[in-house]
């Protein structure tokens, strides 16, 4: 199923090391060996507990719009990773990487978000980048 999504959505396969920890639920639903890399437009950023969700509208090869949900940590963990709610606004174009659900529905656990200016937001300090992709210190 993951291959199907990669084909339909033109998603690249990446090697991504870490998986965000979740205290609230098991990660059994996610395929941690599979990766999605999708470019789209932010529809909504739910900055909430127990998890935040970033919703991105992605247009597939057939021209159909698919709403992808990316699950992330709660606000205080994101804030400590430098991911402020104000940094991801509806309408903004982003590229999002994550580990998808095993059952093929359009959702994934968030690994990183690349903004239009090249900065990368992630809970993993090794993946974070500043504008233009420059290295940044962990907050």
């Amino acid at each position: 199923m993951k291959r199907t999504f990669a084909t339909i959505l033109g998603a690249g396969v990446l090697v991504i090391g870490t998986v965000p920890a979740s205290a609230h639920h098991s990660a059994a639903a996610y395929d941690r060996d599979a990766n999605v890399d999708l470019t789209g437009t932010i529809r909504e950023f739910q900055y909430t507990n127990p998890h935040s969700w970033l919703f991105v509208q992605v247009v597939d090869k057939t021209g159909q719009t698919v709403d992808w949900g990316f699950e992330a940590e709660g606000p205080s963990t994101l804030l400590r990773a430098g991911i402020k709610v104000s940094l991801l606004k509806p309408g903004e174009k982003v590229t999002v990487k994550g580990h998808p659900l095993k059952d093929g529905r359009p959702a994934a656990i968030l690994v990183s978000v690349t903004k239009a200016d090249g900065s990368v937001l992630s809970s993993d300090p090794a993946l974070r980048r500043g504008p233009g992709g420059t290295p940044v210190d962990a907050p």
Partner: protein
Amino acid sequence: MQVFSPRTAAGVAIIIVHIFLFLPHTAAAQDYEKWYKQSEQHFLELKQKAGGGATLTWNQLPDWTGIWSHDGGTRFDPRIPNYSPTSAKLTPEYRAKFEKKLADQKRGIEWDHLSYCLPAGFPRWITEPFLREFIVRPEEVWWINEQQSEVRRIYTDGRGHVPEDEAYPTWTGDSIGFWDGDTLVVHTINNKEGQYNRGQPDYSDKVSTVERIRKVGADVIEDDITVYDPLSLVEPWHVVNRYVRVKTPDLRINMWSCEENNNVVKTPDGSTQFILKGEKGYKDPNSLITGPGETPAAK
């Protein structure tokens, strides 16, 4: 041929007896702990050693201010990764349960009661991530955990446990304690059954603990814990957990509502799944207050 004189033999015997008598005290702390049969006996012995324990005055209290977070992920024994053989000496029943849990997880089947937005429970509470705060007062210590906005109250005013005929299992248990210098010694009983975390063993509602909590550095608070559980453990389990200071400037602990955005459900085979936005049964965090069918306020 006489190798040892009677006097030498007696001396050797005395040395051997002393070695056995003092072995627990000279060995590592974790070895010392397991000689105790009962947590209450352990707690009372520590209290006796502390001269009866103290209730500190305001100016005697240690400074545990700041925001802290558990070091070592969600491991109960920080030395042992989750989903690995445990350092706990389990009874056959609980060992079988643990082995089944690990086998299920390998098949992709795993559930956690936290996903129902229930509290973690104690002693699992020790392991939960996110932010923590200690409010230290003479008569009690509040140990606040960001997750679920929980507060664990440790009474240090000299009171005993809840009387048996009034006691019932609770999510954080019934904790009483005393100060031994700058170390908070705590006895906790009346807990609900649970698991130390995902990928770790279960414990029964007969579980109890003795903790010695103290600041071991400017940025580290240590919780030295011995767990007693006659149903799940064949001997007490001793672990040391640490909490490190979170240095993010101006960080604060906000209200943490698990129901705010929880669309996790348990599958028929006992695993974890999500109801996604747009699917039947999805609880939209934007309309939880306005109610279903009503239009949420524009953002």
